[in-house]
């Protein structure tokens, strides 16, 4: 992973991106009725009068969905306030009531932030609760509503609870945009309120993209990119759009405010609806629902039950280990931060802990390795009880079958090689191989390296690999200097 700014934009331009991320909440039932909230069922099987918007039906809010939304709000460091549901009025066949019940001027969550692994802070304007629409399949024509021969609508998704997370237009690079989305996903998974799968649509990203001359602060005309199916695809779509806009500006033209449809296969976007005439959604307070007023107790309970979030975990590991951001992010991503900190707390050398985890525990399943045994292994290695090579072998066995490092080392015959014993062996070898020793002491760089290899090899052969290569090198250096 790297956070360096990719040189994708021509000199003199900078990128301005704001993201709208829709997240489906993993509740058992929909937002306003008891229908199952499930992906992949037969079309129109998880429906009832309420989510079909039949005349006379009324919504009743799903308390779990509201709780999940507030958990997410707290995780995103938002102000969690009384929320008012509102109606957003527009006609669309997959929206049963022809209005979407959402939040408008009083969202449950507002004014939050997310800290990226490199320390960049993304402002979050709001994270509001709303219902999902049904899913249309346009058959014939170009697969879009306007030229389709007919359309099929599946209302299983209608009324599924969503949170829409709206970032500030502050993302300045594609890498930051990507890190933000993956950071959001990490948080969603950490608190368990969504499965956050972009490919199944349970996490959907729309990107508002504009460009401006580097160093200025103006916000120029933006385009909204839709149909983004993965983080990678988002990066490509933003890059394409930024370059398209820069082309327009440099040729004396201006972008129009519009929605653009990203075509992943073709690697380009096409213009959709023009937003010159801004839609008038005629928002007003939803009269069929009452305000969502969280109590201080509810918020306190959410905070108390909040698991450690990735940014806090990164900060903690950075403080404990003193390692750089990139390594820390890798370990937190792999979920090895708890083990690292526990091992360091038990007295294991921080640098060794991080190195072993980073390079020698890059495996999917390390559940058999306890923090206690891992700490012990590092302590043994630091004390010279195990060579680096032996430590790696012991760790590999711990991953496969668990167990205690001291017992594994004993079983494998990895006996501690005392320092005196080793130094005696080295002296003996020097005495037995005066020619080689001379070349080591007086030779050029190449000779010295070659001879170091010779002596180390001899020692390893004599000790059946139990000697620490680094200790041998140190002894040779001492003797030649002395």
């Amino acid at each position, binding site marked *: 992973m790297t956070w360096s700014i990719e040189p994708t934009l021509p000199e003199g331009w900078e990128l301005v991106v704001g993201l709208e991320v829709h997240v489906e909440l993993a509740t058992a039932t929909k937002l306003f009725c008891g229908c199952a909230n499930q992906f992949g069922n037969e079309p129109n099987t998880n429906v009832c*009068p309420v989510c*079909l*918007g*039949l*005349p*006379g*039906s*009324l*919504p*009743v*809010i799903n308390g779990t969905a509201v709780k999940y939304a507030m958990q997410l709000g707290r995780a995103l460091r938002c102000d969690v306030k009384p929320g008012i549901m509102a*109606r957003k*009025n527009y*006609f669309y*066949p997959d929206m*049963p*009531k*022809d*209005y979407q019940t959402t939040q408008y001027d009083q969202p449950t969550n507002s004014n939050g932030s997310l800290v990226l692994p490199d320390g960049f802070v993304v402002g979050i304007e709001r994270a509001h609760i709303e219902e999902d629409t049904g899913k249309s399949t346009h058959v014939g024509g170009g697969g879009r*509503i*306007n030229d389709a021969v007919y*359309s099929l*609508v599946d209302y299983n998704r209608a009324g599924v609870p969503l949170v829409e997370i709206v970032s500030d237009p502050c993302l300045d690079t594609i890498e930051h945009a990507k890190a933000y989305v993956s950071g959001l996903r990490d948080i969603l998974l950490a608190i368990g309120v969504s499965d956050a799968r972009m490919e199944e649509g349970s996490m959907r990203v729309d990107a508002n993209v504009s460009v401006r001359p580097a160093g200025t602060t103006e916000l120029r005309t933006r385009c909204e990119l839709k149909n983004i199916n993965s983080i990678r695809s988002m990066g490509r779509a933003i890059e394409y759009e930024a370059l398209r806009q820069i082309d327009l500006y440099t040729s004396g033209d201006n972008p129009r405010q519009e929605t653009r449809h990203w075509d992943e296969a073709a690697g380009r976007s096409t213009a959709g609806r023009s937003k010159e005439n*801004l839609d*008038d959604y*005629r*928002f*007003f307070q939803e*009269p*069929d*629902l*009452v305000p969502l007023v969280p109590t201080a107790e509810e918020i306190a309970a959410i905070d108390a039950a909040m698991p450690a979030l990735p940014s806090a975990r990164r900060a903690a590991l950075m403080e404990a280990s003193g390692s750089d951001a990139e390594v820390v992010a890798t370990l937190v991503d792999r979920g090895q931060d708890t083990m690292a900190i526990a091992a360091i707390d038990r007295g294991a050398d921080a640098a060794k802990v991080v190195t072993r985890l980073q390079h020698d525990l890059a495996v999917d399943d390390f559940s058999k390795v306890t923090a206690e045994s891992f700490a012990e292994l590092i302590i043994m290695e630091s004390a010279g009880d195990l060579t680096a090579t032996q430590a790696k072998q012991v760790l590999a066995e711990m991953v496969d079958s668990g167990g205690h490092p001291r017992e594994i080392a004993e079983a494998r015959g990895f006996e501690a090689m005392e320092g005196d014993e080793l130094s005696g062996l080295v002296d003996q070898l020097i005495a037995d191989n005066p020619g080689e020793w001379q070349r080591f002491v007086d030779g050029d760089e190449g000779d010295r390296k070659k001879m170091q290899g010779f002596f180390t090899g001899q020692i390893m052969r004599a000790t059946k690999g139990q000697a620490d290569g680094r200790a041998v090198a140190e002894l040779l250096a001492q003797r030649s200097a002395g």
Partner: protein
Amino acid sequence: MSALEIAAAVKAGETSAVAVLEEHLERIAERDGEIHAFNLVTSDLARAQAEAVDAAVAEGRDPGPLAGVPIAVKDNTCTRGIPTTCSSKILEGWLPPYNATVIDRLGAAGAVTIGKTNLDEFAMGSSTENSAFGPTRNPHDITKVPGGSSGGSAAAVAADFAPISIGSDTGGSIRQPAALCGVVGAKPTYGVVSRYGLIAFASSLDQIGPFAHTVADAAALLEVIGGHDPRDSTSIPAPSPSLLDVLDRGVEGLRVGVITELSGGPGGVEGIAADVAARTRQAVSALEAAGAIVSEVSVPSATLGLSAYYLIAPAEASSNLSRYDGVRYGLRVDAATTGEMNTASRSAGFGDEVKRRIMLGTYALSAGYYDAFYGKALKVRTLIVRDFAAAYENVDVLVTPTSPTTAFGFGDKTADPMAMYVNDVCTIPSNLSGDPAISVPFGVGDDGMPIGVQILGPAQSEPTIFAVAAVLEDVAAKGGAK
């Protein structure tokens, strides 16, 4: 026989539910041709329900408080498998797959659903002339309107087609037709009766309520249909009010206020007819004679209610009626594109008054007009809530005319929507404030047509206003309203 008398006789085995039903079906067959109270007479369903009640009685089980009582239901209330049209072409042929909560409660109480009654299309109107299926006529004089929008339900009771019926009241739609047809009609506190299954006109104002010949029957019906319903988020979490027990508690010491602005005098709203104003004063005097303490109260914002209502109700309606788009149910007029199909279906399916209100509401919510119209109307609504709350610090109930005039002739007010809207001036404030109100017949006007007096009270004061209505009913029965 009153509803309570029928239920008692059926339970005692003195008559059968089937016999009672046949008697009413006969009257319908004789006279509904000229009255047109019903969009649909549900004879088969009613016979099955009546037989079940008789079977329960035969087996010694309690069939419920409304055992064998025929009830007419406004045709904007969902009945499973039975057409529910809102008197609109756009819903012709639609069969709801579910029952409204009130329908289930009526069934459980042993009531027999005799038919679905005519209304102004989507409950928008004050004369039932806006029905797509032709107007209902006033049983007292078939050249006059029955009022609206629940004209069919009021006429059904007035013509003895059923002893009780259900209506909905968004801006006087129960009370005004009750007054014009000479029956009792009540709008409960917003949230006392579940709206689940009531096809929405204006969600924050709609409330289901009873029609009956007597205050006691209306009370019995409200007791059955009221009480918390978890399927309606705006339902008050309380059991149905106990009314029959307290109907005879009288008005001794009760503080009765007369609203200056709605009395027909100078400085108040214009258009309150002299005979109606005189009857209302007579009713107040009767209450004073019965021990009430009478005073005059000014509620300045009461005169603003009409303007606020005709922005708020159409605004909500414009959104509530969006779902009739030709996609899933009801009328579809095919066209080249989805958008054109929406437009063609809605143009053919909605009548003029519905279109007028959709346009009005769409305009009131539009960007640039929201603050001046919808936003301002909400402020007036707040003012009305505050003014009425202040009035109730000094009085227990308020008395006004229900309708400014007696029943008018067909076509008298259809040419001028404003003249029609003024009909609701006395009834609208309690919809805006959410407070309960009841209209009780009190004598006739110069034309011999019924006059209703309205009693208003603060939220959940149904026991009090029903008791006051019972006193006026008693006075009128003894000749005190001549």
